[in-house]
């Protein structure tokens, strides 16, 4: 017998050429080429103290706190672990006497000019400087000189305050502003010991992402107004959750104290938000505790709304629905909305609509998205988009509508991973980063795409590698027809390309997927509103939907709400549409209920309840379940997990998404695609020639508008501007007007009066107006069935 050792039988595993083996504190660590020592050490459980290093920012080697003994073959030397890449055979000692002395030295020097006002500092208790002084500091200060003094704090924007005495000049906020956000509005000023952070005089740090600088500040130098002096960190209770302000699905931590929401922090979800949040998502928690919240159900009586008990209100809602059913059959009832809540909310309401009421007229988009059948196509993840060779944008301004997706794609372009080809009726936040930007006049996007595809250089670019089309609605003042055709033209020209829907409303993808979509022959929102306006809708059920504010064609919305015989509204605020309802059911808001949400990728993540529901409000899914009982159905839901499990059981693509699976899925679970559905019929319309005296109307959303979450958050509300018309500077003469002047703008529908802004981002011959701002309502001008809307502008 021959003894064959097992080692001879087993082939040596192939060595990854990128693998690097080094020794940290005596144990071997496997790392990859290019990884910095500090990151390799962190993965191996060897913490190296640091201030300026941040895994999502370019290393700068500024604070010198991470100096450790690194032996790269020439003997141990103190080197900054954040800037030295690993190399084979490297030996790292994070606890050598030289390292310890260096760390104590840095802490002493950092604290020399630090005010040590920890007792009154918001950061106290969660402060890296405090913690590292405790863990790595010398324990005493020998600095007896006068400390540096600055006025404290100064407001560097409407939201963010800067205390330059506390600042340790780590360059994190400034690097974030420049590298990540692309808003280099804060900078080092002066030199040496006088260095401090400033903005340019009268140019505040007006970044949509300013809150992130507060989150990554390693000291209490940057604070945000909504949290200043509100709580001590050790009093905060917190849970991980997902932001549903838009549909990117950023992971957050929701923090509260004494049952009051106080702060959201970004969680570093690698496939989604990298730790970042937009200011709107970060600070709109204020609206949850707004004094204007609807706290109990209301039932319309002869003399107006009266508060009602839940049983009375539900009974009233049930009887309205039953009356409607009796009068016009189930198809005379339409359910609109469901995109603002959780998947569980949407699923329960979709069951109520489809199963209990029996109507096919269930829809969650508000006439501002694209047909749901686009979700059937091969969908890209955000990671796939942000690493695609070519990114095609046929979408709204992502910086305004899906801000963190903007950051991710901006990074892809900045790091030269991807080239962006943008088709847009107006320059967007990403135009600066676009390899090619094609401005098109609304209605002509197919021609613009075809022209681009004919360019050999662009064809060559497409041929180089993966293509992801980011698809959404760039203009609310035209039907989706031309955009959908343009998207399909790009997809047809690039087989194998993927699509990432740029749908905006919080859980619109989830709502569509779990059932808030029309059944055969059903009416989508536009059709349902049209039917209501025509007197064909006996009962309109608005589930967190406010057509008067959100539907682009305000006149149609107005006529629909007047024409609907009965209206049942479910909402957190008494919105303009809810004001016209017969019954308003008071819903719990974000962070007052748990469940799941689905982002644009189809990624399902959890949403946590962190505070008790305000007043007498209830989660939408509970309202649906109870209403079902009154209508003769029984969903048998007792807990939120029952609903999640029911979705997994019934909804195609959700089979694996059980409460148990979600509990362990750090980055959520991507749902499978929707079952096949017929392609939506596009509205056919001839695109008229634009009269040279007219402007073609472009309407889109901005980050800060009159949305309930923004308008009811005091820190954000004032950031929304009045409705103004933006014209290309060279077009002002055509109207005979000047910047700031008041003009009247007329369509076939109506005339509104508003001020003019000269804006080179606007294409000549078009007029851009932000949607849902205060003052004039541009929705009054829009005919949502028209292929395009042209307006005439006259000086007042």
């Amino acid at each position, binding site marked *: 017998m021959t003894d064959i050792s097992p080692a001879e039988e087993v082939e040596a595993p192939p060595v990854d050429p990128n693998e690097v083996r080094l020794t940290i504190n005596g144990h071997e660590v496997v790392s990859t080429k290019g990884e910095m020592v500090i990151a390799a050490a962190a993965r191996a459980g060897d913490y190296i103290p640091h201030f300026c290093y941040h895994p999502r920012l370019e290393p700068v080697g*500024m604070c010198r706190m991470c100096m450790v003994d690194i032996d790269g073959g020439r003997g141990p030397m*103190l080197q900054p672990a954040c800037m*030295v*890449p690993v190399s084979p055979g490297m030996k790292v000692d994070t606890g050598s006497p030289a390292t310890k002395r260096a760390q104590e030295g840095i802490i002493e*020097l950092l604290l020399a000019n630090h005010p040590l006002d920890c007792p009154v500092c918001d950061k106290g208790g969660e402060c890296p400087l405090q913690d590292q002084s405790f863990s790595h500091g010398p324990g005493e200060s020998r600095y007896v000189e006068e400390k540096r003094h600055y006025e404290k704090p100064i407001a560097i924007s409407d939201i963010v305050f800067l205390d330059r005495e506390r600042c340790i000049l780590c360059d994190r906020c400034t690097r974030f502003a420049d590298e990540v956000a692309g808003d280099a509005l804060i900078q080092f000023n002066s*030199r040496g010991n006088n260095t401090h952070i400033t903005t340019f005089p009268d140019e505040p740090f007006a970044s949509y992402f300013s809150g992130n600088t507060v989150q990554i500040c390693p000291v209490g130098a940057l604070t945000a107004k909504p949290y200043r002096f509100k709580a001590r960190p050790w009093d905060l209770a917190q849970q991980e959750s997902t932001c549903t302000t838009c549909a990117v699905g950023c992971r957050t931590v929701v923090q509260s104290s004494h049952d009051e929401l106080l702060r959201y922090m970004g969680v570093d979800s690698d496939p989604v938000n990298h730790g970042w949040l937009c200011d709107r998502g970060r600070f709109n928690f204020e609206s949850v505790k707004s004094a204007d919240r609807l706290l109990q159900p209301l039932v319309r009586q002869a003399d107006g709304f009266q508060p009602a008990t839940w049983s009375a209100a539900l009974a009233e809602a049930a009887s309205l629905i039953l009356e409607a059913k009796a009068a016009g059959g189930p198809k005379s009832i339409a359910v609109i909305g469901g995109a603002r809540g959780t998947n569980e909310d949407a699923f329960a309401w979709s069951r109520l609509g489809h199963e209990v009421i029996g109507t096919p007229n269930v829809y969650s988009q508000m006439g501002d998205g694209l047909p749901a059948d686009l979700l059937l196509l091969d969908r890209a993840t955000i990671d796939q988009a942000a690493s695609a060779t070519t990114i095609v944008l046929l979408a709204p301004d992502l910086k305004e509508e899906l801000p963190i997706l903007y950051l991710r794609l901006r990074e892809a372009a900045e790091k030269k991973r991807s080239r962006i080809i943008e088709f847009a009726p107006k320059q967007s936040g990403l135009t600066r980063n676009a390899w090619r930007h094609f401005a098109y006049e609304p209605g002509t996007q197919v021609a613009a795409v075809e022209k681009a595809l004919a360019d050999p250089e662009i064809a060559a670019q497409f041929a180089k590698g993966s293509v992801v089309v980011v698809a959404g609605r760039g203009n609310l003042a035209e039907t989706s027809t031309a955009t959908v055709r343009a998207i399909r033209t790009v997809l047809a020209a690039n087989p194998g390309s993927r699509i990432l829907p740029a749908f905006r409303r919080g859980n619109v993808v989830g709502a569509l997927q779990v059932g808030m979509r029309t059944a055969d022959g059903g009416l989508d929102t536009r059709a349902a509103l049209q039917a209501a306006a025509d007197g064909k809708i006996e009962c309109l059920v608005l589930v967190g939907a406010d057509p008067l504010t959100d539907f682009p064609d305000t006149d149609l919305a107005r006529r629909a709400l007047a024409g609907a015989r009965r209206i049942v509204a479910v909402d957190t605020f008494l919105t303009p549409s809810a004001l016209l309802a017969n019954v308003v059911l008071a819903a719990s808001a974000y962070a007052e209920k748990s469940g799941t949400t689905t982002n644009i990728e189809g990624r399902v993540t959890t949403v946590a309840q962190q505070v008790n529901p305000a007043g007498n409000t209830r989660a939408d899914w509970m309202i649906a379940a109870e209403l079902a009982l009154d209508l003769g159905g029984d969903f048998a839901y007792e807990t939120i997990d029952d609903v999640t499990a029911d979705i997994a059981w019934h909804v195609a693509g959700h089979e694996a998404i059980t409460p148990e699976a979600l509990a362990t899925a750090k980055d959520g679970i991507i749902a499978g695609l929707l079952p096949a559905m017929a392609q939506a019929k596009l509205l056919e319309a001839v695109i008229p020639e634009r009269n040279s005296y007219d402007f073609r109307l472009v309407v889109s959303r901005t980050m800060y508008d009159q949305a309930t979450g923004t308008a009811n958050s005091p820190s954000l509300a004032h950031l929304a501007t009045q409705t103004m018309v933006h014209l290309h500077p060279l077009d002002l003469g055509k109207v005979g007007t000047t910047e700031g002047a008041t003009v009247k703008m007329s369509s076939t529908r109506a005339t509104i009066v508003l001020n003019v802004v000269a804006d080179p981002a606007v294409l000549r011959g078009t007029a851009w107006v932000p949607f849902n701002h205060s003052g004039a309502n541009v929705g009054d001008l829009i005919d949502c069935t028209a292929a395009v809307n042209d307006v005439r502008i006259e000086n007042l």
Partner: protein
Amino acid sequence: MSRYAWAPGYTDDGDRPKIVTSRFQYEDGYTLDRYLATGGYVGLRAALGRTPSEVHDEVKSATVLGRGGAGFPAGTKWGLTPQGVWPRYLVVNGDESEPGTYKDRLLMERDPHQLIEGCLIASYAAGLSQVFLYIRGEMALAQERVAAALNEAYAAGYIGKNILGTNFSIDIVLHWGAGAYVVGEETALIESLEGNRGMPRLKPPFFPAAIGLYGKPTIVNNVETLSNLPWLLTNGAAAYTAIGTETSPGTRIIAVSGHVKRPGVYEIINGSTTFRDVIYGEEFCQGIRDGHELKAFIPGGGSAPWFLPDQLDLPFEAKMVGPAGSMLGSGAIMVMDETTDIPAMALTLVRFYAHESCGKCVPCREGGTWLMRIMERVVAGRGTQRDLDQMLEIGQSITPGQYPHAASERLGLAAAPFPFRMTTICFVGPSAYNAVDSSLTLFPDEFQAKLMKRTSIPVTAVGADS
């Protein structure tokens, strides 16, 4: 007194070979006419008659040591650019501002064409695509002379498209700073040239030769270094290495300032000339001013550890000065006689480096100013022993371990060799500590004498002055 009124500071009337200061004798040495009349652009013609790699080899074999401070051979530096990466840039470091240093300014004011020719030779040899000539902001005359020389040279076809009718084409762009010592550090110079704050980038792993200006391979050479090239190409590497020693060939310019009889700028034989030659030699400084004696001298600019008279016989040879505890740096020798108030003079250097800290690294930003505050207190007679101890502690936070210093029999010191370890990116922070360490190590008694005495505290009984 200078024999050359038009070149203040240049007192060199010695009969030695002059490689870079040969035209200082002419009042109009900065004009193209004089330059051409004295062998100008001959080196460039010689270079263009050979292949770039031949020219590169010639420079390499001459071992032209960098004259900016670090002493890295220019030819070797050019060879550090990564293969196949283009374009490559040349940045000329004319941001001379090391305390005690005065040479590059003279070269730019007195012989700008020599520098231009040097830039062209370097660009030809190393395949560089554009030259940026960065002159210190405060040097108005140097900027004017170089600008005028560039304009002349462009008009005469020495710069620009198809130089001297060949396919060698390059632009030299005059750039000027705005007052920041740290920009003399090559990575800070690149930041500044890119329009940013002049804060050094961490060098390893990215040297400018690999990732420099606009992220492309970049050669950063000192003015004096490049000014050597025309002579070298005209006369050949053999003639160059025949001067000086094997490890330090050629000449180098030094500036001697302070308490000597004849302070000035001299072009000396590299490697063999000693500090004693320079300070006491007849053709150089002719000794300490009358009636006084040498107390200490700084051999290589304000950043260099100080030497005592014991080290006078060291030659200008990096391989000997380093182990003896200091560096040759930028060729600046500052001489102090026995009247010198050592702590007060050390304070001027500490103040310089604290003032010039860019603010990037914490040890320099915070430690430099802290050292300055303590030194101010000590010099003002209000210091304590605790202050002196504390300065050494701050030094440990900036440059851990033993700081370089010279051997001294009198003090019983064994030499601690240069260089030192540091917790900062560049030398500004350690330099702030350098003056403290040298002065405090070599002259502890002078500090002790300044400390606050109990008797010097004015005692006023409570209420006595009311």
